[in-house]
Structure formats: C-alpha cells, structure tokens
C-alpha cells in the first residue's frame, strides 16, 4: 500500500512525529493506573485470538500498536487478556462479524503487539480511538480507549483540544504516533496499561 503525502496529511500523520517515552518502571515506584474510559455499545464478546486485525483489501494506514500490561508496581502481568476493537477506516464498526476485533494475551514480560489499520472517525464521536478491555487474575478489569495525538480532531494540540471529544476525559489516553516509511508508510503507537486491584 502506498499513500501520497496528501493522504498522509488527511490521515493526520506527519513524518518524524515524536515518540514520548513510556514511564520508567524500576524499583517500587507506583505507576498511575491507566484512566478508564467508556466501554461503548460495540463491545462484542468472543473475538478471535489474533495479532493481525488487518482485513485484506481494506483501505487505510497500517498501524502497529504495542505496549505492556503492568500492575502499579511495574510488574508485568503475564497472561493478561486484552480485548481490542475499533471502527474501520470509514468509521464503521462490524456488528455481525469480528472485523477489527481481537483477543490478545500478554507475553511473560507483559508485552503485547497487534497490527491493524488506523481507525476512521465514527460519526457519533469526535476522535479516532481503539477500545480496550484488559483483564488479569486478581486485578480490576480495565475498560479504556486509546487515542492518537495526530488525530485531526485535536488540531495539532491535544493538550488543549482533547476535550473536544466529550467522552475523552483524560489527556493521558492520547498517545504519540510515529511514522515509519520503509516499504510504505506505517504508523506506530505504544500504549502501556496499568491495572489496579
């Protein structure tokens, strides 16, 4: 897939976007819990186990999302289950099937990674987003959403504009986006989740 410069701009991405480091995890430092966000009406149980959500032939910017699932002491939550779902690049959710829906399992070091296409703007929401439902034994289920700093809805200034989306109550859920351009553009986002008890 090849996107023109104009298509990249329309997708809200720019080459060289900064990647902000994730919090240091050493010692007994307490990490802030990942803010909760609405589950929304489109959660669907029984999503397939998969790390590749890309539907062949669908238009959209390839996106790799990675991160860790941790407790507040920074300990990886091996085996944590992440359910992720989002709209396709047109902003449409698949209700009948499981397109752009998956269930992931965190590795022993707490890491996870999946490939998908950048979500479009669901018309009844302001910002692009990916839904998360993260569960681990003995931990409170985390329901949240991942947002993108390059979303045109934030007009380049997520700090000031995040509240344009009334569902987005916490700026910390907006993550920086990196763009790689080797063999075609591909966006990358790191989203660590910290679960409480």
């Amino acid at each position, binding site marked *: 897939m090849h996107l023109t410069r104009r298509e990249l701009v329309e997708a809200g991405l720019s080459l060289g976007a900064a990647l902000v480091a994730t919090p240091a995890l050493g010692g007994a430092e307490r990490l802030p819990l990942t803010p909760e966000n609405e589950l929304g009406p489109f*959660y669907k149980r029984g999503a397939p186990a998969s790390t590749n959500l890309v539907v062949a032939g669908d238009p959209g910017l390839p996106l790799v999302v990675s991160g860790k699932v941790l407790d507040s002491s920074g300990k990886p939550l091996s085996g944590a289950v992440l359910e992720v779902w989002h709209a396709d690049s047109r902003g449409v959710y698949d209700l*009948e099937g499981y397109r752009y829906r998956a269930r992931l399992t965190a590795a022993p070091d707490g890491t996870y990674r999946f490939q998908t296409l950048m979500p479009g703007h669901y018309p009844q929401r302001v910002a692009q987003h990916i839904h998360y439902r993260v569960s681990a034994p003995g931990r409170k289920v985390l329901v949240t959403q991942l947002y993108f700093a390059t979303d045109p809805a934030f007009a380049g200034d997520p700090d000031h504009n995040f509240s344009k989306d009334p569902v987005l109550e916490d700026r910390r859920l907006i993550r920086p986006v990196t763009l790689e351009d080797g063999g075609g553009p591909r966006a990358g986002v790191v989203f660590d989740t910290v679960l409480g008890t």
Partner: protein
Amino acid sequence: MSDGGTGGSLRIEAPARVWDLTLRKRGRLLCGLLAGTRIARWSCEDGKLLGDAAYQGPTLTAGAEAPEGDRLAVGTVEPAVRVLDAATLAPVATMQAPPSRCGDLAYSADGAMLAGFFGRRRLELRVWAVASGAQIASFTDVAQEPAGIAFRPGGRLAAVSLLTGDILLLDLGASRLVRTLSDARMACEGIAFSDDGSALIAASYDGTLLAWDTREWRVRRLEGIPGTRALAVSPDGARAVVTRNSFNPPDTPAELRLVDLRSGRTEARRTAGIAGLSAVAFVESGQARVALARGTSIELLTLG
C-alpha cells in the same frame, strides 16, 4: 429490500427537533421530547397534536412516559426524579434519587414501577413504587454499565441488560441478583418480557434476537437486525418488532422487521428513510406500529 405486510404511513412535523420518541397506549399515543425541553404528544390515528408544553426546570437528562400516557417521569442532574402530569407538566410526585446524573428512566408495563439508572460508567439502579413514591429496590455494580431494562409483568423480577451483553435478572423484592444470562454476544438495548411473563426477548446489536423461556431460561437465537435500537413484543408473546436507526454508517436507511418468535420467520420487513430515532409498539389489531424521526420530521408506519 423486499417489503411484505407493510401498511401506509403518516407524516408529522414536530414544532422543534425531536430528541426522543415513545409510543404509548398500545401504540395509539406518540410522545416526543423536543428541543427546548418541550414535551409534545400526538394521536397516532390522525397525527393530530394533542399537547405541547415546555418543562420549567433543570435540563432534562432522561425522561419516560407512563404506559397509559398520563404521567411523565423526568430526571436531571439533581438528586430527584420527578413525576409530572403528561399533559400539563404539573408536578405529581418527587422521588429521592442518588446525587449523580440520571441516565435513563423506564416504567414497568403496568406503570406501577419506575426504574432509573444513575451515574456514568457504572450500574446504579433505583426502582420506585409509583403509587407511593417509595424506593423498593436498589442495585449497584460499579464495574458494569447498563443498556436497558425490562420488568417481568406480575412479579418483581427485572432484567437489566449490560453493555457487555450480559443480562442480569434482579429480584427487586430483595435487591438481589438472581441469575446472569450470558447468551448475547453484544449489548441488548431492546429488551422486553411477553405480557404473560413467560418469555424474555432481547435484541443484540450483532443482529441476533434472543428468546428465553422464563421457566428454564433456555435460549433460542433468531434472526433480527444488526444495530437494533428498539424492540416490542406482541401481547400474546408470539411476535416481535425491531428497528434499526440510521447509524454505523449514518447514511444507512432505517430498517424495520416483524418476526414470528415461534418459528423465527420474518413476517414483514422494510427499509425507510434516514432516521436517528425510532419507537415501536403493537396496536390492538395485532399490527406493529413504528415511529421514526429525523430532525423535526416524524413518520408513523405499520407492519404486519
């Protein structure tokens, strides 16, 4: 899409943008919550406007019309739910409520009970006896979010559907969870008991219509409409009508379907125009009545 068993339509122009719609009195009365916190009521027989009054008070966050159309319950950010005379909006009763935003209100089919959901990203349910105004049940689960509620006629059982797809069966007498139904794969915004309480019907967003017998709680899966927003069950429990509004994507025409719950056969179906709101009911003749709204335009249709 082929149509079958569809009747004519009646168009109504509301005096302001329609925010919410309900059909009451077995589909003979149409009630609308309009922009400007106006409450309007129309006859479904001829579309005649029966009343239009503005609510004087805090911004409404939820409203529910009683089954007979004579009372209107309203919720705000105040810790109170008020019951009003539906025609004049004069206050009739006030129920004490939790100190958080009222998200939804619903009457039982006989109008004897009123339920309210409060707060965000949590299930906080209160149920009142309408006659006395006394709270008769409360149920809280901070890890769940509600999608809808149905009261079982003739008893004190309520079914609360959650955004996860689970349906909680609550004993309102004891404010206790009796059973969790985990058969739906997606949230069921439309949920209703049959009049005799022998069946619970729920329309999952994934397009499955689920029918449980309430003795054994065995489920049957029937074909509905993906993204169903409104559901009604016929008085004899034999049929259901479901509607899908125009959303996901928003240029999708609204869709209506009448389903035989015993055979699972679709008796009638049709697409309509673009509609952001819908309401459904069964009328005395056994036909299903559907109200669709977009902006200030309302269309009344019959199926079956």
